[in-house]
């Protein structure tokens, strides 16, 4: 099976205290997970389960404490693979002094998109996310929903082979949600991979082929949603996750 991302026995412990020599807080405990190519893969779990940490490791935003990760067939130290990844996260803090088109041009330039293709790509994406008529306005004047749509546009700049959406519908307006679903379906149809991180089951249910459930830094389920919700007795079953308060505190990064 071809995999867009492979996590093998991943541990991540955040150190706290002065110069990082304080107590360690475990965020991931031996996570092993494969994200198959060409699928919409859901990463589901309650808040502070370690979902975002897993994404950060995949994007080289943080280093794993132990274990190995393969990203688009290459080890993490090959940063060039980041050029084939799009990333949208829940709380963008884009430079407020830039306009929508300036922001996309800036990020497109950093993504390595050739100068001659960049203006056309920016125009296309601004139209796609419904911000073409606000292209010259500073982001400071944008609503949260508009900023999220701009976040989606920047994630699509490099026509990614792997799109990572971390809680993408947070603050997204109705148009934005519909657009997001449409984009995910189009990418899947084009054979691209989407990693959708969410704590909302409906969102995952609607879009994902396969999912993994992460609880307190550990993968507790991997497979299809249908299998997860199918009761061996023939009916439907529900998944209930309960976290002990102490353990919640422990995984808080």
């Amino acid at each position: 099976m071809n995999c867009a991302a492979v996590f093998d026995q991943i541990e991540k412990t955040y150190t706290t205290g002065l110069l990082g020599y304080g107590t360690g807080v475990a965020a991931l405990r031996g996570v092993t997970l494969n994200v198959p190519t060409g699928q919409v893969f859901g990463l589901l779990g309650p808040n502070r389960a370690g979902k975002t940490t897993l994404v950060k490791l995949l994007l080289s935003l943080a280093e794993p404490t132990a274990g190995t990760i393969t990203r688009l067939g290459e080890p993490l130290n090959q940063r060039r693979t980041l050029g084939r990844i799009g990333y949208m996260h829940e709380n963008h803090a884009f430079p407020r002094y830039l306009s929508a088109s300036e922001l996309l041009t800036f990020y497109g330039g950093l993504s390595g998109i050739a100068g001659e293709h960049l203006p056309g790509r920016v125009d296309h994406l601004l139209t796609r996310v419904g911000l073409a008529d606000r292209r010259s306005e500073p982001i400071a004047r944008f609503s949260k929903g508009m900023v999220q749509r701009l976040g989606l546009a920047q994630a699509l700049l490099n026509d990614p082979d792997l799109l990572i959406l971390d809680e993408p519908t947070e603050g997204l307006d109705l148009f934005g949600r519909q657009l997001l679903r449409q984009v995910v379906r189009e990418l899947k149809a084009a054979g691209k991979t989407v990693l959708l991180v969410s704590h909302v089951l409906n969102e995952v249910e609607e879009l994902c082929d396969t999912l993994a459930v992460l609880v307190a830094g550990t993968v507790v389920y991997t497979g299809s949603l249908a299998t997860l919700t199918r009761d061996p007795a023939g009916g439907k079953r529900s998944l209930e996750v309960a976290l002990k308060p102490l353990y919640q505190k422990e995984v808080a990064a």
Partner: protein
Amino acid sequence: MNSLPTAIRTVRWMVRDTFRQSLASKLFWLMLALTALCTLFCLGIRVTGDDEKPRHPDQLPTYMPRSEATPEVQAEGIRVVNGEVSLGFGLFTFEVGKHRTDSVRLIQLWLAGVLADTVGVLLALIWTAGFLPTFLEPQAVTVLLAKPAPRWALLLGKYLGVVLFVALHALFFVGATWVAIGMSTGVWDVAYWLAVPLLVINFAVFFAFSVFLAVCTRSTVVAVFGTLLFWVLCWAMNLTHHHMVGYEVQGVTPLSSLSVEVGYWVLPKPLDLSGIFFDALRASDYSTPIPELEAMKARGQFHPELSVLASLAFAAAVLAAAAYEFRKTDY
């Protein structure tokens, strides 16, 4: 994707972004307004008096304005100069015991060597100290770090962007005040332009330290106050070293002497940078702005090239440490 072109492209984009940030923060216009104010001040200067005469190297360059030159003073060999400086378009006028060119150089010395090199550099350090912490906020930087751009290049681009921004303003300041002084006094001393690289080097060295603090703490307050404290420390170290060596201070323990010597060579040397500019404007002919530096020169212990190189080496080392810290930081 080749790593070197990627790094160069990253630095270029970051420099562009930093310029836009400065324009948006009104800092560009604020600094331009200060330059305009200084230019206006320079346009209001009038200098009259004797022209500079060729001087024998051993001649004592001591002058006195005519109003103060009693016959007794003149009998001592102190020469009388008919010098007059007027400021504020004739609002304030006073006699000076200097030739016309020296009077102009003294004004330039105060403008670039004291006002810009001290007040200007400190203000620039304070005003730009927030650029890096803002950039390094996790919610702002994560999307950038997820791009295929090396982290060190992102940091270097931001650093160079700020330094180039300040260099541009140093160029505006020196250029505008040079033209204004030239137009109002008729003295066009090209040595004044040396202020541009010296101001930029001075700023670049201390801003590197500010970047290091920003990367370690992500706090504007720490970056501002830490850099100001460090600047004071460097001045003190520079002055202490020159005082000890220049005046051959007795009774210093070998350990203290070694500490000062090491501290001097490791830390940036703002006093030496000023000294280079003072030399370019031949400050010792008409004033003694830094006696310790003059004492060092008299002993042949002042090495301006080495001093500049050591300061730049410090900046490079601190930037490398900041880049290392940035590379291994989890976001």
